[in-house]
């Protein structure tokens, strides 16, 4: 007796019947699932946008590490002794990685090179107008403010210019947008949870006969919950795919198509796009599944 009835309790449903349950549930719940997908897509697109903005900040940081230095303009009256004393002090400074002296002539040539696109500007400045300078590369570019404070006003120093400080507005702009994107993503995540919660309630109602039969014939709790969690995870996956598509489109049309022509700064490449897409897909699916599990505690007694 019970030969056919003896079976392990934890056995899961086969993929075929499970898929058919999932499919009927999705069809029955089409409008609601669509609403969930839309919110999840917006949420994940915002999350992805935030990630890409952060990638852009990193890209600029990397660029600055190489390119941007603190420039110490030397007064015209500085003596060679004063200059070597200043240089020696700088070489002892742990915040400074390198010191390079540029003569007035070299400074002028660099200026002509940097502004070769604007002949009017070049024409207005003569070879003697620009001061000789010490160009400092920093051990930590973020410490530039300290350097400025330390060397401003020393003998023979006319001015200390932190080129990174010029970029502060850009950084503030990027940071603000990053925070904005993440905030919107969080708000949309809450909205998604509310919708998934409702979706599960409606779904539990639509499936109540199936659920009752499953309980009656001894389906495990996991099996009873699986179609609901999968339904939500599918919505999360579709939302994730759409959001990933939005990120790719933003890279192609907005970043490469628009910004690349408008700015001299380097823009992030494809790697951050793929990384963000993967994060967005995984986060979408997992978060939707977890949200569904939470909602199930409320709406499905097993």
């Amino acid at each position, binding site marked *: *007796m*019970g*030969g*056919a*009835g003896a*079976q392990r*309790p934890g*056995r*899961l*449903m*086969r993929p*075929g*019947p499970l898929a*058919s349950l999932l499919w*009927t549930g999705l069809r*029955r719940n089409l409008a609601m699932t669509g609403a969930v997908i839309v919110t999840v897509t917006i949420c994940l697109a915002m999350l992805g946008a935030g990630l890409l903005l952060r990638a852009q900040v990193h890209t600029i940081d990397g660029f600055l590490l190489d390119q941007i230095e603190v420039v110490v303009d030397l007064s015209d009256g500085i003596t060679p002794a004063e200059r070597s004393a200043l240089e020696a002090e700088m070489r002892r400074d742990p915040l400074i990685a390198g010191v390079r002296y540029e003569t007035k002539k070299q400074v002028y040539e660099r200026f002509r090179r940097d502004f070769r696109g604007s002949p009017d500007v070049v024409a207005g400045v003569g070879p003697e107008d620009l001061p000789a300078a010490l160009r400092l590369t920093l051990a930590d570019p973020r410490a530039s403010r300290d350097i400025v404070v330390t060397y401003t006003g020393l003998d023979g120093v006319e001015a200390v210019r932190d080129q990174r400080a010029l970029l502060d507005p850009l950084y503030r702009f990027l940071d603000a947008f990053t925070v904005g994107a993440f905030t919107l993503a969080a708000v949309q995540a809450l909205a998604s949870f509310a919708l998934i919660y409702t979706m599960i309630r409606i779904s539990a109602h639509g499936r*109540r*006969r*199936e659920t*009752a*039969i*499953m*309980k*009656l*014939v*001894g*389906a*495990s*709790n996991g*099996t*009873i919950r699986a179609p609901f969690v999968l339904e939500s995870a599918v919505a999360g996956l579709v939302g994730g795919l759409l959001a990933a598509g939005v990120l790719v489109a933003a890279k192609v049309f907005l970043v490469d198509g628009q910004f690349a022509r408008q700015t001299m700064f380097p823009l992030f490449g494809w790697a951050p796009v793929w990384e963000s897409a993967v994060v967005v897909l995984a986060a979408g699916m997992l978060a939707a599944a977890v949200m569904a599990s939470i909602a199930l505690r409320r709406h499905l007694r097993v």
Partner: protein
Amino acid sequence: MIVLSSVSKRYPNGARPALIDVSAEIGAGEFVFLVGPSGSGKSTLLRLLLREERATSGQVIVAGRDVARIADRRVPQLRRIVGCVFQDFRLLPNRTVAANVAFALDVVGRPRHVVRSVVPEVLELVGLGEKADRYPDELSGGEQQRVAIARAFVGRPRVLLADEPTGNLDPTTSIEIMSLLDAVHRAGTTVIMATHNASLVDAMRRRVLELGDGALIRDEAGGRYDQTAPQPLQPSTSPPPSASPPGVVPAQPAGTAPAGEHSPWAAPARSGPVG
């Protein structure tokens, strides 16, 4: 197979207990009628056996397990041992007969080859081999109950609970369902059937447990529906288990309680053809 020791059940909002100090023992392979007036606690008793409810006090043992102490996640195992059919059939309207029966195997993870071979067998057994592809709303009540029995039986439970299985059926169909449950019993299953159908009980002459206001007031082998009914002419010899159900059409009209007390089985038609 089933042991009840001083079982009492009081629902949280119940004025009086639904079951009071019920003790009984039902052996493996027995057939038992559970009778008693409406509200006497028959369905409550069956729900305790399925762990849909827990006893307030006393002990319920099914197949050696103390039902109240089964961990929540092991309750499904109990339900695979204890099958159940109801007055209102509880079929899935958007699945065919065969799919309804297969569903019970699918959701407990039985392999496909098992489902494919066992489902037609069981449908043949309940006499619905020809109607495997029909939808429930294309079947008579008796046929729907056959499907429900097939679904409960297909996993080969050791106990089959039937809560007024003939409650919605006419007398002739009731006899057919009775004979089907008898066949399930003869296949070795312990069957407990709660019923108001006096003529079936009187004709079958099996063990009768009678509840009155939640108390067990009678436990009689080869009993009749009514304790006060005249004793049978021949001495009380219970018919052998192989006996088929009576040929007499019962005089008592069937159908007592309304279908679907508090459950999702109210809507009549299937919501959409899915196959």
